[in-house]
């Protein structure tokens, strides 16, 4: 029997974990801590690459058990079609329950990124919808895949980030967080947002996907896709709901996405990278940050902090 066992990384690397092994272990520790300390946790599943990594780490954390909490997807109804297909496949593959929540009132009122502007739309269809779901299911902890290297207000956030009964964040009054000792104590109605990928960088995420062979939405790989150019950004025409100006004729271009969200709000980049290796290579040469493709971050200075205080993930 012993000869069939794999040597530990410690044995292989002379007592030193690799960078990714260290990140992986830290994330697993955080994820387990939530399962052990909370009554009713949930994992926000956004279908993107970070969510894919978080889900993979979750499977590792509890193996051979199944993860003891469900997934929640806040569906704005404006996600790329390929994302929704991937979401349903994934939930089936990992055997976790998937809760899909949409702000029905917003839907009835016809809120869209075009009629109400990206800021109001995001507020109603994402932030409000998320708060509705958290309240409705009485979740006391919610995992998110945000990373500290993404944006400067994220760089300030704790791994266990306290939320008031109204899901608000008070950045000036965060609980001290020392070592890997997380304070999970809350009163009824309050909750904690948990960010197990806090210390990962974009490069780490891609390298880990490569190393672990983690399935991701095909939109991350370059392919010929119909796009229009708006304010210097390439927007994919994912369905016929995208209003086109007369001068706008969708063109087939070789594009891919560095980050995924609602299709009218997520810009593609021109790229020939159609394999993971090529994506990582391109990343290493990148001169713009991944969130530059997120139109909502540019609305106004400090916009992410403001959204987060109001309950955005």
């Amino acid at each position, binding site marked *: 029997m*012993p000869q069939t*066992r*794999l*040597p*530990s*990384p*410690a*044995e292989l*690397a002379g*007592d*030193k*974990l690799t*960078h*990714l*092994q*260290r990140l992986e*272990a830290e994330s697993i*520790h955080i994820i*387990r801590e939530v*399962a*052990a300390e909370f009554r009713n946790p949930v994992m926000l599943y956004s279908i993107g690459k970070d969510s894919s990594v978080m889900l993979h780490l979750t*499977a*590792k*954390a*509890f*193996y*051979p*058990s*199944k993860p003891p909490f469900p997934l929640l997807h806040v569906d704005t109804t404006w996600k790329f079609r390929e994302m929704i297909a991937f979401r349903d496949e994934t939930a089936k593959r990992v055997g976790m329950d998937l809760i899909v929540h949409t702000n029905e009132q917003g839907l009835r009122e016809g809120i869209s990124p075009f009629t109400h502007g990206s800021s109001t739309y995001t507020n109603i269809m994402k932030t409000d919808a998320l708060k509705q779901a958290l309240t409705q299911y009485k979740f006391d902890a919610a995992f998110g895949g945000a990373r*500290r*290297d993404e*944006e*400067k*207000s*994220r*760089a*300030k956030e704790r791994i266990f980030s306290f939320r008031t009964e109204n899901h608000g964040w008070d*950045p000036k009054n*965060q*609980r*001290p967080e*020392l*070592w*890997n000792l997380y*304070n999970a*104590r809350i009163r009824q109605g309050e909750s904690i947002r948990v960010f197990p990928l*806090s*210390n990962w960088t974009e490069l780490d995420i891609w*390298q880990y996907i*490569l190393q672990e062979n983690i399935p991701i939405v095909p939109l991350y790989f370059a392919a010929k896709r119909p796009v229009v150019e708006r304010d210097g950004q390439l927007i994919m025409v994912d369905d016929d709901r995208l209003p086109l100006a007369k001068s706008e004729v969708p063109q087939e271009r070789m594009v891919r996405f560095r980050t995924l969200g609602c299709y009218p709000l997520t810009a593609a980049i021109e790229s020939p990278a159609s394999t993971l*290796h090529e994506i990582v*290579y391109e990343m290493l*040469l990148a001169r*713009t*940050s991944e969130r*530059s493709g997120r139109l909502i971050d540019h609305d106004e*200075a*400090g916009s992410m*902090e*403001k959204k987060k205080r109001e309950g955005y993930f």
Partner: protein
Amino acid sequence: MDALRADPAAFTDYLDRQQNKGLLRFLTCGSVDDGKSTLIGRLLYDTKLIFEDQLASLERDSRKHGTVGDDLDFALLVDGLEAEREQGITIDVAYRFFTTDKRKFIVADTPGHEQYTRNMATGASNADLAIILVDARKGVLTQTRRHSFIASLLGIRHVVLAVNKIDLVDHSQEVFGEVVAEYREFSAELGFASMVPIPISARFGDNVMERSPNMPWYEGPTLVEHLETVDVGAHGSGPLRFPVQWVNRPDLNFRGFSGTVASGTASVGDAVVVASSGRTSRIKSILTYDGERAQAGAGEAVTITLEDEVDISRGDVLAASNDRPEFSDQFSAHVLWMAQEKMIPGRTYLLKLGTRTVSASVTEIKHKVDVNTFQKLAAKTLDLNEVAVVNVSTQEPIAFEPYSSNHVMGGFIMIDRLTNLTVGVGMIDFGLRRATNIHWQPVEIDKEVRARLKNQKPVLLWFTGLSGAGKSTIANLVEKKLVAMNQHTYLLDGDNVRHGLNKDLGFTDADRVENLRRASEAGKLMVDAGLIVLASFISPFRAERRMTRELFAPGEYVEIFVDTPLHVAESRDPKGLYKRARQGQIKNFTGIDSPYETPESPEIILAAGVNSPDALADEVVHYLAGHGYI
């Protein structure tokens, strides 16, 4: 890069190198105007980690809030909160990531204001090195002392003194030298293992990444060179400690214990003990999603199964059965208070250590420490950002170790039961035995009576210092001189005690502590008998010396630091031990691969590398005469 694209093998190799790079976590601290955020911005900029769109928004923000005229204000890049940008200060810790060819870095950018000390401690808790920034024009300030103290309190052993804005003092070597000398003087008692001073200009980049042409007199490393190469040692050495996080029960046939190895190595077949119940078993398997393992080392998150059905739940600690952690309901600790509401002894809080949460209270504040002057002060309560040495009592016994030997097993947070806020953080120094509560039968013949007969005041003279420092030689001479003066003495020698009283002990940290505890207790009995006791023990750790000191009434313990530089002690090497330690034949050898923590406030310091043993012995005798012992 383009060569990599053409050659997939080279690219894979490049990626492997990326992830096999070491990681250094450090923090930066300094006050408002020392240029701390500017330095981090500079590091990110020079290592090309600022993207074009971030640069564009930096240019925008620089015009709006910037304080450096037309130049880019790097501080705006890192101060992430609106309130911070508006007020131009750092309120909370921010984490930044950058990479060079040699290492990856996580920087905790921490605030300097006293009111945000708790946020600095948050950043310091996971750091292995601290960059202390000083404005060359202002030199060492109160906050410099505070930041250094907090860093040392949280166990940081390596410091860079970055003397910033050197451009504003004409790149002067004299100014730099003065600041460094001033810093060295007060930081000596903080026990840093390394302190590297570097003159820099964060704004212009001098000696940050690139060597400065303006300071040809400076021959040390640039800041980045130092960060890339400094050896901060490894965490997680010592015997196996595995705090159980979550009991893994997918079905009735499987019962595993999930957690992260805090220290040591878990191997299949190893005998382990549950620290709380004392039940023992052997490791049957070590499971991960990626397959079974023969071993798991410190920092790895795994699931362990045991050969026997043992009752274990979250909060228990699996430990090496031949080297167990302390298990007690009382300990002494340093505490930093983090809440507006005062800490009051006797009040119960929740205490979380590892994966265990228990009710606990502070039974006594021994003294608080002024974080600016390091003075010890009496205190009844603690306010926000105050530090104190306290005794803690937990409702149930818990497994722990001194923070200095194991951060996971010795660091804890305190949580208010009503508000649920994290109100305090503590670092355990040593356990207090139950025996401290047993009341002694008073006897009519007491030590004063015995001492009076001998015409002396009993005292324990504790000689501490490196192996080969000359402790025993000096102690022997002191004893001879005292006996010649008709005093009643006894010499407890470290080596000799190990032949008898302590011959069952080895040299693990736990055994060393026990060795000293027994010696101290023996010394106490002899002091009680009225003797002048000379004890010579390397006693490298402050915690144990403190333990000894606290066994005695004030004046009954005199700490004598035999201060011999390592290279002198090593060149003497009377027993050939240094040579063997250098060859790796002896592990945990003080001064070589185990630290000697310099005494903070010994009663006597003997410059043993300079004066003759006889002269040094005279110094001790004079001290005893001068203080009324003889």
